[in-house]
């Protein structure tokens, strides 16, 4: 069964017809040619497909495209302003917080979403004091970024980059 849907991807209105079994990730990659979100596991276990979905980070491999008709999606490509990198991307470059780059767009979207969550006062598993706003400690960054796996082992640089970008 096919369905016609509209998605706003990185600020551009796109319409497409998808098999209703199509994930948001496959809709972006196979239908729209938007290759910034990556497929690492297709099971919500690695985070490589993370985008900002209506402003919040989401795993597109666990979302059916047909359920997100009308949604606004920001990928790592859309976070950059033309040739100018987003401050989080620039910090990743400065700290060499990537190697093969395959998990990287997901890390970037996750970091941007995570900093917003922190700013909005969302606690995490490691937040000690639930009565006030969580602080941006390295432990908070590590905990909140643990849904994004990196096999090249760039974690220490990722934490440093996010700390730097947030300050």
């Amino acid at each position, binding site marked *: 069964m096919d369905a016609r849907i509209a998605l706003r991807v990185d600020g551009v209105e796109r319409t497409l017809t998808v*098999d209703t079994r199509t994930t948001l990730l496959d809709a972006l990659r196979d239908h729209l040619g938007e290759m910034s979100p990556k497929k690492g*596991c297709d099971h919500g276990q690695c985070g490589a497909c993370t985008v900002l979905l209506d402003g919040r980070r989401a795993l597109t491999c666990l979302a059916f495209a047909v359920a997100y008709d009308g949604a606004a999606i920001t990928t790592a490509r859309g976070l950059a302003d033309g040739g100018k990198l987003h401050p989080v991307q620039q910090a990743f470059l400065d700290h*060499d917080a990537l190697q093969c780059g395959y998990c990287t767009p997901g890390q970037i979207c996750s970091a941007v979403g995570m900093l917003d969550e922190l700013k909005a006062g969302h606690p995490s598993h490691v937040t000690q004091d639930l009565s006030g706003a969580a602080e941006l400690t390295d432990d908070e960054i590590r905990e909140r*970024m643990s849904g994004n796996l990196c096999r090249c082992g760039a974690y*220490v640089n990722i934490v440093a980059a996010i700390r730097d970008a947030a300050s």
Partner: protein
Amino acid sequence: MNILLEPRAIGMPLERLDGAAKLTGTAPYAFEHPVSNPLYLHPLQSAIARGRITKIDTAAAQALEGVVAVITHENAPRLASDKDKELWVLQSDEIHFRGELIGAVVAESPQIARHAADLVQVDYAEQPHEAELRADRGDLYAPEQVNPNFPTDTAEGDVEAALAAAAVTIDETYTTPMEHNNPMEPHTTIARWANGELTLYDSTQGVHSVRTTLAPLFGLDPARVHVAAPHVGGGFGSKGTPHAHNVLAALAAQMVAGRPVKLALTRQQMFALAGYRTPTIQRIRLGADRKGHLSAIAHDVVEQTSKIKEFAEQTAVASRIMYAAPNRRTTHRLRALDVPVPSWMRAPGETPGMYAGEAAMDELAIACGLDPIELRIRNEPDLDPESGKPWSGRHLVACLREGARRFGWDRRDPAPGARRRDGWLIGMGVASSTYPYYAMPGSAATIRYGSDQKYVVRIGAVDIGTGTRTALSQIAADALDCPLTAIRLEIADTSLPMATVEGGSSGISSWGSTIVAAARAFRSQHGADPGEGSEIGASMPENPDAERFAIHSFGAQFAEIHIHAGTGEIRVPRMLGVFSVGRIINPRTARSQLIGGMTMGLSMALHEESVLDPRFGHVVNHDFAGYHIAANADVLDIEAVWLDEFDPNSNPMGSRGIGEIGIVGTAAAIANAAYNATGRRVRDLPLTPDKFLT
């Protein structure tokens, strides 16, 4: 003679040149290459470990709208060579391991292909299989050699007599489990067959090696096979050789000639089809006098291979060169099982072998009442014990001493289980690292001075995330004595000159030497002010110096561990690696590689274990939920530094390669720290909490 380059761009901590493209997700990986009107392939895998297919009913799949082809052994095109049985795909009804490829559906969408794959009915005649590695079996055998071409066994002196006479002996068995490389980018390929030519956009560590492997398999002239790998999402050895899925995609492309066929293995499929590190069972015996001087080292290894293709991991090879002992022996014995084909995984041989060897050295230090660093210093060999050649800069002791100073080793309490804070047992451990220097002959490069006043440097190398693009550009700039901005490097395509595979930490050594040779030839031929269109090519030169020396990298790894006395929870708050690896080409990307290797070593030490169910022959935990690799919260403080040096004998850059040494010794440092923290010696990896309870 090896003439060293004057480093100018070399040694600069440049940002990686493809950084911005990767950070925005616009750097194309294999599956992302734009092709028109593609088809999607979903593989079929055997549900038994050994036997035959008696019937394969594809009617329901064929009938599904959108299915273009269902391929099985009954209708697949014939291959031309069965030399490599891993690649002998869909050529018979025989099953050799569970998860082996037995067919594929090619369809207009990935959804249809996957649905149709579920509709294929397969009947089997099952035969008994064996999928469990055990050391107590009579059918172990000695391979002719171990990877890549080391002797299977070595023996010098009389180990048994030396052990019998030794004042202090260690005799222990260490095991490492089956482990899977798991690069973040799955193995993917786009195959197109048109006009008798095969084109692959492939996720590989060597475009030319894919060509030279697949061409004879399909009976093609190599010039008719084109391979491109613009960006590769990690490999760690698992993309070092083409695997069965490459052949499957090419067979499918042949059947639907003209249309590109896209294949991305699922994460689950990668556990059967993309190689893995063999489990190892390692018995180590050490003999020493009371002052810790080694008289004997014996390292006997049992590991597995597959019945269809032999891979013999060189696990004991590092023990041949590490320490001075007049009596030494190493052996490798294999058991061939009905299991997937093992292959390279980051520092094959050294990684499991140095885990066992360096844990045994820790045990010897305790038995002798010595500091483990002092024990290693006392057994430092003047010459390579194996070849008798002089070292080309063996600085293990300097690494150990520098690491001890930086890490605060003097604050370690040698008594096990002596430090406790808030319910956590605290310990520190150390281990040595080593990795041999490899440069592989066979690469070629061309340099052309273009109309835009840039030097176009062409070589069919790849960048799997190591920073090849950046480092080779730096080398080219110094070799041509020009600014980095005047270099335009082209890599990752078989239309470029031959380049050897990215493996054995040999990439920069091999390709860099080749570029330097081409640059020197260019200047010699065309001078400092070349005319537009001036061009020259060169191959990797021989380096006779390399034959006169034992060229190895060394390092020292330190770890602090906290183990909760009540729960067994393990945290590693600090790790430090100090490495002697020759000249560093790019400190920024080099640090990332070394830290990355140590992070993978931490993951090996604490988490990684592929659980193969011997009843069925498959890896049960075949995804990231079951096969845990270190996540961000598992990693705390890891630092890597190196000695400021160059190797005068390795190559014109003075470098030795750094992709692998970072993982070597890490697990031993952590296991040794765990003993220091708890007094409990866990010899079987991974170090999971349950092993520290009871």
